[in-house]
């Protein structure tokens, strides 16, 4: 059974591209435009991994990460943080309780590599 990845980003173009690449790589993909939508999808789809943008409207990356990890049912889902700001990224990753991060503009191969590392 293919693994499911939830991609959360308010940038529609990035969602479109990541969805395309991830499907090519054989993943199921669900998408959300902000943290609020994403939290609903987590419950519904129980993804195996989440790719999370840091800055988003409504519910941002930090709040999403905290809520995800606060729930016993979802706290073990690995998260890869996407961010366009290179300042103190490691601190931001910890704040979002994410497992890894990728800087925008990322090389998609780096994203794939990190996915395989987290859900081999």
């Amino acid at each position, binding site marked *: 059974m293919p693994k499911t990845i939830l991609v959360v980003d308010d940038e529609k*173009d990035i969602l479109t591209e990541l969805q395309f690449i991830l499907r090519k790589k054989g993943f199921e993909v669900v998408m959300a435009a902000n943290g609020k939508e994403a939290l609903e999808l987590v419950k519904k789809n129980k993804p195996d991994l989440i790719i999370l943008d840091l800055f988003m409207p409504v519910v941002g990356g930090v709040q999403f990460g905290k809520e995800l990890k606060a729930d016993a049912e979802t706290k073990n889902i690995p998260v890869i943080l996407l961010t366009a*700001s290179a300042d103190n990224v490691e601190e931001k990753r910890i704040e979002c309780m994410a497992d890894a991060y990728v800087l925008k*503009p990322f*090389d998609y191969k780096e994203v794939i590599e990190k996915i395989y590392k987290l859900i081999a």
Partner: protein
Amino acid sequence: MLNDAHAQMFGIPSEKMLGKTDKDYFSKDQAQMFWEKDELVFESGQENINEELWTDSNGFSHTIITKKNLYSDKKGNQFIVGIIRDITENKKIEIQLKDSRDYLNKIINSVADPIFVKDREHRWTLVNDVFCQFMGYPAEKIIGKTDGDYFPKDQTDVFWEKDELVFKTGKENINEEKFTDARGITHTIITKKALYTDNEGKNFIVGIIRDITDLKAAQEKLQEMMEVRSRFTSVVSHELRTPLASIRTGVNLILDGLAGGINKEQKDFLEIVKKNIERLSRLINDILDFQKIDSGKIHFKIVKNNINEVAREVYKIMLPLVERKKLTLKLELDENISEFKFDRDRMIQVFSNLVNNAIDFTENGTITVVTSREKDTLRAKVIDTCVGIKQETLSRIFNPFEQGEREDSGKREGTGLGLAICKEIIIRHNGKIWVETGEKGSTFHFTLPIEGE
């Protein structure tokens, strides 16, 4: 007739002086002056009081007040009755007083800040010139007046509240306040007030004002500019990188054949696009990096690290680039250099920038990275074998947005920030960076103090 005090004062016994005149004892000028006053009394019959200078037999100058009156006896003989008071000491004190007053005035008027003294009833008793300029009135219109004569009640209340605080506590008070001058201009001032108690136990406030209106305006402007810069940085960072992420991903997935096959020409052009995306990314990163380092926003993680390991890490990063250009990258590392304190990531950046520059400028040849130790100093070199750098651009090479021109005048695709970033990083580590260039290539040197081994 002469009394004993007269004899004492002049040091001549009375019996010797009787029957003599001033001319027998004093200089011609002095005697002449005494006589003039005598004649004045004889003629007018009126009392004459005169302050005069007299030099005693020891050569000391005395200030004396001589009071002369006319006395006529029954026979109609006229005499001068004179009393002398030696006021030399009083005079001295008076001069000293004037001196210290002049001295005080000189000091308070040479200070660029307004100074005032107020008595217990808040009346100004002393002000300096700058205070008068500040108020817009001359001193004679200020002395004896109070804040109440010049300022609205609410403003006066603020000033007096602080005066009272100082009078009551005896403690110095420093307060920032607003103040509107005679021309209607509002100033921001800092007033420092201290208590002064004179010999009689009277209390005064001694105050000094600093006009910080311009400083305040400059500070606000600076603050505003810092905020604009910080906002600009975050906009550049986020708003430029985000679209670049989609562009990069899109181009790469086509180039990698994920969206189906493309022909050679399509691939060639997409490679150009890709190359320029990388260039734009580097430019954005360099601008942000330089801005952050330059503004002191970056916190350097100065901890124990191995410099040779950094060089090896850079070697690994740079190797694909070197191989693509068919160049040779060599490491000549002094393995006896122990770990010392520096920011690892920043030092990777320095080596990468230097090696990257060398790769850019070298068409064929070798790039060598050297580390060595000299006492408590690390010496590092990045040596290339390409054409040298033009002498006239050498001095500007480490300035931001300036690119050193190579002797072959070839156009380079740098940001002009790489070396400026290196310089900032090295300076923040208390090191030095410089370049030597010649026909056979250029060598970039830097040193770091070896601390915290």
